[in-house]
């Protein structure tokens, strides 16, 4: 079939249709991930609706509430955006290594230790140094800590052959134990009685809100991080080399690409984003490092990254969508008497169905211009 396409025979088509063909091919290739993802989301919502009907509630009411709670008013939109902000960064922690073929699931560890490192770095400076210097120092401390933590998984993967999924998971548990050790011990503020924390940041040292919004700067930082990551992967030679190594390590090595440095560099960068999420949680939300750092952002980030198919730009809408679903949980609980875990069931269902639908890639002729027959071109394109 492909031979037929590539043979330069005289086409019965008008010049008009022939000039359209590259555009249609481009459209078809771009439409595949969008169409399959949307189809998967619809299938997931349908399955979830069946579940809601089985437990005796109306899925229509539920989806209406979900919209109201997530995006129905300026207040709820701001709420959703606030919840999306850390997910942007923790999703990058999964998506960047995934482009190299690595499955990193321990972003939670980089978040909590990034937060602790940021709080620890601020301690000796608060009061004597200006916030304009302290906040970047905190960010750098959080990023270095997160980068080291996830970079270690990449290092062990390449140089010791240790599976990165298991290593990053183990490191996440170790990180949470370390966090508990520091906030209960050496870094504990004696004034924090019920909830052990580090010394609170004075309010003028906190990372404020984006002007005109009740959303902190973490959202803007996350969006910029996603755009920068996209440019890095799609438009630089570093990103190109990483994509080759992700496709075939042996081929990349034969080409002389520094696979080890790529793996360590990408995992460290990914971890530094998650560490930054921890720093923002401390500097903009909590005001100190405490056990609330382990709120599961690292694990929800895995879901966001897979739904976005590890495309940093797609992470932005997916994170906002999941932030909205998350934000509507309270409203669903109050109005419909459903448990707060309802949103978890929805997230889990969507996650499973979307991964299942990966199997449909390349199965539909309409998205594969190589399989198009010439005469079909004029009429049937969509």
């Amino acid at each position, binding site marked *: 079939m492909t031979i037929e396409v590539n043979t330069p025979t005289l086409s019965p088509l008008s010049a008009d249709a022939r000039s359209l063909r590259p555009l249609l091919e481009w459209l078809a290739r771009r439409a595949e991930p969008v169409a399959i993802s949307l189809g998967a989301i619809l299938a997931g919502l349908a399955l979830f609706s069946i579940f809601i009907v089985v437990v005796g509630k109306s899925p229509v009411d539920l989806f209406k509430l979900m919209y109201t709670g997530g995006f129905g008013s300026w207040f709820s939109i701001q709420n959703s955006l606030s919840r999306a902000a850390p997910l942007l960064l923790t999703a990058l922690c999964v998506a960047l290594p995934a482009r190299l073929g690595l499955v990193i699931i321990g972003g939670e560890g980089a978040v909590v230790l990034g937060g602790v490192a940021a709080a620890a770095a601020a301690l000796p400076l608060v009061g004597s140094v200006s916030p304009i210097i302290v906040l970047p120092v905190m960010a750098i401390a959080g990023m270095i800590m997160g980068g080291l933590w996830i970079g270690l998984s990449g290092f062990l993967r390449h*140089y010791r*052959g240790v599976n990165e*999924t298991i290593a990053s998971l183990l490191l996440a548990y170790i990180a949470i*134990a370390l966090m508990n050790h520091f906030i209960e011990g050496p870094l504990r503020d004696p004034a924090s009685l019920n909830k052990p924390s580090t010394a609170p940041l004075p309010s003028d040292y906190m990372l404020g809100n984006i002007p005109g919004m009740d959303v902190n700067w973490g959202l803007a930082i996350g969006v910029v991080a996603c755009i920068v990551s996209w440019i890095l992967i799609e438009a630089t030679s570093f990103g190109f080399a990483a994509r080759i190594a992700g496709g075939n390590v042996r081929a990349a090595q034969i080409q002389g690409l520094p696979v080890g440095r790529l793996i360590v560099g990408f995992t460290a960068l990914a971890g530094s984003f998650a560490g930054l999420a921890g720093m923002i949680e401390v500097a903009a939300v909590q005001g100190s490092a405490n056990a609330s750092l382990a709120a599961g952002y690292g694990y929800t980030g895995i879901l966001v990254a897979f739904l976005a198919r590890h495309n940093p730009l797609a992470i932005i809408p997916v994170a906002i969508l999941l932030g909205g679903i998350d934000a509507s949980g309270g409203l669903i609980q109050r109005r419909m008497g459903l448990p707060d875990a309802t949103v*978890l069931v929805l997230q889990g269902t969507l996650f499973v169905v979307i991964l299942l639908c990966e199997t449909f890639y390349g199965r539909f002729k309409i998205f594969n211009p190589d399989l198009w027959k010439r005469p079909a071109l004029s009429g049937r394109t969509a």
Partner: protein
Amino acid sequence: MMEETGIGIWGVPLAIFAGAIRVSTPFIFVSLGESITERSGRINLGLEGTLVFGAMTAYAIAVMSNSPWLGVLAAMATGAVFGLIHGWICKFPKVNDIAIGIAMMQFGLGLAFFLGKPFIQPVAPHLPSIPLGGWSDLPQIQSALNINVLFIIGALLSVALWWAFKNTRVGLILRVVGDSSDAARAMGLNPDSVRLLATAVGGSLAAVGGAYLSLFYPGSWNEGISSGQGLMAVALVIFARWNPIGCFLAALLFGGAGALGPALQSVGVTQGYYLFYAAPYVLTLVILVATSSPTRSLAGAPGALSITK
């Protein structure tokens, strides 16, 4: 307390021993389940969801029927269903078994929390334990030797599985499929069906681990019931080199390492208490680093397993 019994410093090893048995039981079941699945050449990272859903099911059924053993059976059934879903999805091309595991974990946790909400308050009957410490007058020894039945079943099961992998037809089929899909097809076996069944059996064993958590120790149902036992199963099985008796010993070691912190705290050591919680994870990581190599896959690893390549 020490003066009363004269047990003194021996309290620490005794507490570690009792703690090891108490903490290790869920690890035994979940790692035996995962070893069966991984021996068939597939990895199920979703056992954490299966375990928590099993804990919820066992507790709910035990509350409603007043029989803990019925709870365990119901948990096994739901665990098998979770395994079947995982195995069914993974047989499609281009589907990543590791990612599906993470997704099934989120799905299982969400569903368990959703359906388990009404069962946080009621009290379920506990699973029985066997008092083996009757010969001693010391209450600590008596309570330390109060061995739960599931631990004993788990120990017997690990020996039985070790024997079955080596000596039975089913064990051979499982190992062939795990080492090479092509060799299995040449023998007329369908690798997908074998893996489907192996994942279902693995899921039902993981659910027993969950039932232990909700019906014996800590013996209640809430959303924080698991501290990652299901996730650790994957590391444990690698640690045990896919050997069921190794799984049993590794689970005991994990339990002992996990009991180290509380045992030391009970005799007054409070410095660095939280660091002891990291002990099992550090131990696993160190052993993985020491035994892995970038140029060959792990010794004893099933050839078709994605995670050791």
